[in-house]
């Protein structure tokens, strides 16, 4: 209605407008992983004759616990395999897989102008390509596989304008945390976030994915970035034809009217770390936990109002997840760890097999392992406490993932979200760094 890129893209996919702002929205690609797909596939098999709308519009990935770590997860992976084979669905599996949100762009499954859904809330990561991509439940994903559509309420469009040059050690992760901090954990509910501005324009596709990945942490339906030359170059490098999407590059030049706009000055962003139990509860490195901080969150995190985060000893560091497991993330973490030793157990999990191999061609695996970190296979890893690297009660982990919810990485486990640079520095120090410690570890003056 308001002529933004998002609106044009949404309207091009509306099969039928329903009551109360709901639309029957056509989905170009369904991403199916082993945790949320099997129950929906079984519903279709039992009640609808196992008929799929278009198996070619589905891509399957074993990613959350891959390879399986017990009989139950083996059954999930086996089910996804059998189902994919039966329907001729392209499947990425052990040895050639990775986190679906990392793998899907690498393999050219997302292009500007597409709609995608997946039984995974971080599907918004793919909005970096000028696509409308959002997480849905198992039944809604099954509906998209059965009928090619989802019933979804059309969000308003909020422009998140980010201008200026990131300084020092500030990264795309810190921009993402700043957006969530500015909006609050539910401040974008009912909205799609359209990120724009000079900071976003100069970001690589990897950085844009980091930014879009955390749209859900502000409660947004999704986040997206209008496609440009950077998008085109990424896709071109991967041999993805873009002729069909040309009109979306044209649309991307139109601005439209936004329901709301927020503006962020990137030059003022410093590395952030969360102190609480939702991703909006963060402070700039070196600042104390707010005096007025939520009691429940602080009690869970074992912190007091006004505490210095660098005083709390940490037990583990995790570098990976759909937020920060791409090559760029691993490079910046490796630069901190090069020639140093970690002082706490540190797990580095590349986002995909392709990322892993690219990192190894650069020798990053040697840097991590020389530093005493564990270099793992590609998967979702410790992020959601389902496979490796689970935390016990009271254990404290600095993580480059996207969620610090209670119990996220294990019952009673405490998670501090941060960028790859801050996580790597924490691994060396065994503590969250002060700004001056981070400067020392990354080179003079980088933490402004």
């Amino acid at each position, binding site marked *: 209605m308001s002529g933004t890129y998002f609106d044009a893209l949404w309207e091009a996919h509306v*099969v*039928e407008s*329903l*009551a*109360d702002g*709901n639309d*029957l929205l*056509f989905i170009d690609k369904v991403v199916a992983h082993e*945790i*949320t797909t*099997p*129950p929906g596939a*079984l*519903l*279709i098999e039992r*009640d*609808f004759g196992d008929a799929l*709308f278009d198996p070619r519009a589905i891509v399957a990935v074993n990613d*959350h*616990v891959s390879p399986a770590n*017990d009989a*139950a*997860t083996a*059954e*999930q992976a086996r*089910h996804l395999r059998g189902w994919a084979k039966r329907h001729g669905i392209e499947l990425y599996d052990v040895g050639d897989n990775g986190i679906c949100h990392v793998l899907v762009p690498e393999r050219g499954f997302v292009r500007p102008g597409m709609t995608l859904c997946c*039984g*995974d*809330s971080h599907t918004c990561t793919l909005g970096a390509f000028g696509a409308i991509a959002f*997480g*849905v*439940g*198992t*039944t*809604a994903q*099954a*509906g998209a596989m059965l*009928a*090619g*559509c989802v*019933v*979804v*309420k059309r969000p308003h469009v909020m422009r998140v304008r980010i201008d200026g040059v990131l300084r020092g050690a500030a990264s795309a992760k810190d921009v993402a945390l700043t957006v969530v901090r500015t909006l609050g*954990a*539910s401040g974008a*509910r009912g909205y799609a976030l359209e990120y724009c501005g000079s900071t976003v324009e100069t970001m690589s596709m990897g950085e844009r994915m980091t930014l879009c990945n955390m749209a*859900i942490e502000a*409660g947004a*339906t999704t986040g997206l970035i209008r496609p440009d030359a950077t998008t085109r170059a990424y896709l071109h490098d991967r041999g993805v034809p873009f002729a069909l999407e040309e009109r979306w590059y044209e649309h991307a030049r139109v601005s439209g009217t936004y329901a709301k706009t927020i503006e962020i000055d990137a030059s003022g962003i410093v590395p952030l770390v969360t102190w609480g139990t*939702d991703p909006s509860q963060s402070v700039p490195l070196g600042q104390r936990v707010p005096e007025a901080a939520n009691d*429940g969150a602080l009690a*869970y995190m074992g912190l007091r109002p006004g505490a210095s985060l660098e005083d709390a000893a940490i037990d583990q560091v995790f570098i990976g997840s759909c937020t920060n497991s791409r090559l760029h993330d691993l490079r910046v973490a490796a630069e901190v760890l090069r020639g140093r030793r970690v002082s706490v157990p540190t797990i580095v999990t590349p986002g995909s097999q392709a990322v892993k191999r690219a990192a190894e061609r650069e020798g990053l695996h040697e840097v991590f392992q020389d530093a005493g970190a564990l270099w793992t296979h590609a998967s979702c890893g410790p992020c*959601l*406490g*389902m496979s490796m690297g689970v935390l016990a009660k009271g254990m404290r982990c600095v993580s480059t993932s996207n*969620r610090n*919810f*209670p*119990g996220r990485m294990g*019952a009673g486990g405490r998670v501090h979200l941060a960028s790859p640079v801050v996580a790597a520095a924490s691994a060396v120090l065994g503590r969250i760094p002060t700004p001056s410690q981070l400067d020392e570890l990354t080179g003079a003056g980088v933490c402004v």
Partner: protein
Amino acid sequence: MRISGDVLALPFDGIDTDQIIPAMHLTVIEPSGLGPHLFTGHAELSNRLAEVPTASIVVAGADFGCGSSREHAAWALLERGFRAVIAPSFARIFLENAYTNGLVPVVLARSDVEACLRARSLEIDVDAESISTDGGERFMFTLDPVRKTFLEGGGYLRYLHAKIPAIRTWAAART
């Protein structure tokens, strides 16, 4: 449809789906066996559940069900005997999952939610979109008119299945 039952009061904002059902329990290919793990992501919540084992209506703070898309959160609530959740607001994906599975999501103003938090039991008239507390208070709410029709089991997929011919026609005509 009427739902009456005891209240599980969870007066906290932002109860996310990791707290409702931790990921370590998502290792099922059928939505069963989840009930015993409900709210085990946070001791505060599981302790409250243990105090009201007969409860069938959750009354919670804002943004209930935020975070992960796991429909297991709705499945776990249903398996444990819950039929409705009352909150000032719900996260989008949880709200969709609740409707799809017949778990009634009731949005009320915060002051009305607070009255429900004080109640021991509630009666919800889903058709009339009203709630009565055991203290005699009555509140009206509005359900999504489209999703209300999905509340009966399997309604969402049956609805979409019936649309397939129209969707195929639309897809074939797309430019």
